[in-house]
Each structure stands twice: as structure tokens, then as C-alpha cells.
């Protein structure tokens, strides 16, 4: 009799295991979500750095030789895909990044391009729109950076 009173019934065990299971599943979802968020934040920092790096390089080109720099821009905008890091030169061809044109630094998940749009002919101002994009966990993330450089600044 005493043994019967002090043991658990099947329903009690099922409820306990169910609550414990829910707790663990919730815990796991939170952990997975926070890990994903941390990874995304980590990649955001790196992507921002790639964007800043390209922005600094384009500014350097502008400072070095304005005429050469504006020859890479047009009124409708020219797109360049920058795969190399550090950047050594203008890309050989114009156009969007292909699906596998990743920046050549691990993790190879970032695609980086810039659109250079000039204001008039002859140009006195160039708008630079930089985008660093990457895919993670089925989502596509991007870091846009926009800056304007002018001949006399």
C-alpha cells in the first residue's frame, strides 16, 4: 500500500516528461535562434568592413586621378563586381556579380559590387552605391553603403 502511494502514475509521468520536453524544445529553439543571430551579426561586421574597404579604395582612385576614375562611371550607372580582397585594380569586366563571384577570403559567402553613376557630362560628381550581400540560413542579407564624391572636395 505504501509503495503504491509513493510511486508515480502513468499520467503523472507523461505530464512531467511532456513539460520537460516542451522546456527542452523551447530551450533548443532559443539556442539555435541566438546562435543564428550571432553568426549573422558576425557576418554583418565582416560585410561592413568589405563595404568600407571598397569605399576607401574607390575614394583612393578618385584622389589619385579624377579623369581615370570618372571614366568608370556613366549617367545610367556602371556596375563592377569586386572579388579580390585587398583590392588591387578595377575588375576586368563590368557587370553584376555572378552567383559564384564571392570575395576571395574565407568565409567565401560574400558578394560585393559597386554602381558608379555620374551626374553630367563632363562629370563633376559621382554617386557610389556599394552593396555587400550574402546568403545565410535561407535568407539573403545585404549591407548597402552610398557615398558621393565630387571633383572639388
Amino acid at each position, binding site marked *: 500500500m505504501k509503495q503504491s502511494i509513493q510511486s508515480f502514475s502513468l499520467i503523472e509521468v507523461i505530464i512531467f516528461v511532456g513539460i520537460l520536453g516542451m522546456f527542452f524544445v523551447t530551450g533548443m529553439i532559443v539556442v539555435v535562434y541566438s546562435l543564428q543571430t*550571432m553568426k549573422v551579426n558576425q557576418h554583418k561586421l*565582416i560585410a561592413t568592413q568589405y563595404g568600407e574597404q571598397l569605399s576607401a579604395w574607390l575614394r583612393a582612385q578618385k584622389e589619385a586621378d579624377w579623369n581615370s576614375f570618372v571614366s568608370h562611371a556613366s549617367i545610367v550607372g556602371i556596375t563592377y563586381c569586386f572579388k579580390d580582397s585587398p583590392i588591387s585594380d578595377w575588375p576586368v569586366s563590368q557587370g553584376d556579380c555572378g552567383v559564384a563571384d564571392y570575395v576571395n577570403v574565407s568565409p567565401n559567402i560574400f558578394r560585393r559590387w559597386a554602381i558608379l553613376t555620374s551626374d553630367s557630362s563632363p562629370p563633376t560628381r559621382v554617386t557610389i552605391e556599394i552593396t555587400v550581400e550574402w546568403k545565410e540560413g535561407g535568407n539573403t542579407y545585404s549591407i548597402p553603403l552610398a557615398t558621393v564624391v565630387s571633383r572639388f572636395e
Partner: protein
Amino acid sequence: MKKQTPLLNKIRGFTFIEMVVVIGIMAIALPTLYAIFFLILQQQIKIVRISEVQRQGTFVVNTIESLVKKNAYSIHTGSPPSTANRVCAVTTPPVSLTSSSQLYLKDKAGNSFDFTVPIGTQKISSESAVLGSNSTIDLTSSKVLVVTNSFSQGCSVSGYASPVITYSFDLCYNINNSNTCGSASEEVSLHFETTAALPNY
């Protein structure tokens, strides 16, 4: 009384199978929990390291840009700066961006200043004659290191435009203050580059 003793023992204690089950569950759960905790900690540490490298790199870039744009008058390959070692002026040659070149800048008052990685250190420093004999100020702390041979300097000039000076470097996080960037899996390294045009005088 003698009959009750075995019964009481049975009620208060755990059976062998219960203990095995509990220890088994704990043996599965605890390593999993520790692994998850370690993974989160590792991610968090990596984010902190990237942030620190980025913060210090941005500070160096901003400081160099600001000092060059405000104070630099001419660029030289030697110290003290003189007409003989002047470069990147209209009639003097450019200097390509390499880790072996050391450029010195002269302000309008004739004082020399430069940015360098002093021998035996892995820090970026600003040297200035205005500061006196102990003329070096570190721009990076011991938390980050300049990757060996990554600090490069160069300058160019186009026509009669202002000369431009370029600095390029890689910073990595100083893992456990060991003065190394760590193994490939834990290394956090970022590339920085800045170009500043000297002011027109």
C-alpha cells in the same frame, strides 16, 4: 520493528536501474549543454574580437586621414625631410605601395611626422618631431596586432593635383596576449586601407 526496517529502506532508496537511467540521461544531457554553451561563448568571443579589430582599425584610418589632411605639406623618403628626399611632388617620382617603404610627412612649419610599425613591435605608431625625443604615440593597443609585413605606404601625384598618400595594413586580434594571431580557426583579421590627399597650399 524488525519487519519494518527492510520496507523503509526500499521506500527511501533508489533502485539500481533508476540510478543507471538517471546517470545515463545526465551523461547525454550535460555534454550537450556544455557543447551548446561553448558554441555560444565561442561565437560571442569572435564577435567581440571582430568588433575590437574593426574599432581600432577605423581609429587608425581616421587618425591618419585627419592628420594628413590637416597638417601634411610634403612627402619625403627620409628624415629629416629635405628637398633631396622629397617624393610625389609634380617633378619628383611616386612611391609604390609596399611594406618596405617608409614615408615621412612635413608640416608647414617644417616639422616631420610619420606613421610606422616600430621594429620589435606589432603596433601602428605615430611619430612626430613636435613631441620631442620620445616622439612616438601608439595608435593601436596591445589587444590587436599588425600582421607581419602588412603595413604598406605609398604615394602618387597626378598632374598638378595634390599628392595623395596611401596606407594599407592588416590587423588581427592578439589571442590571449600571446602576440600571435592564433590558429586559422580562431584568427580574426581585417584589412584596412586609407588614402588621403595633402591639402593645397
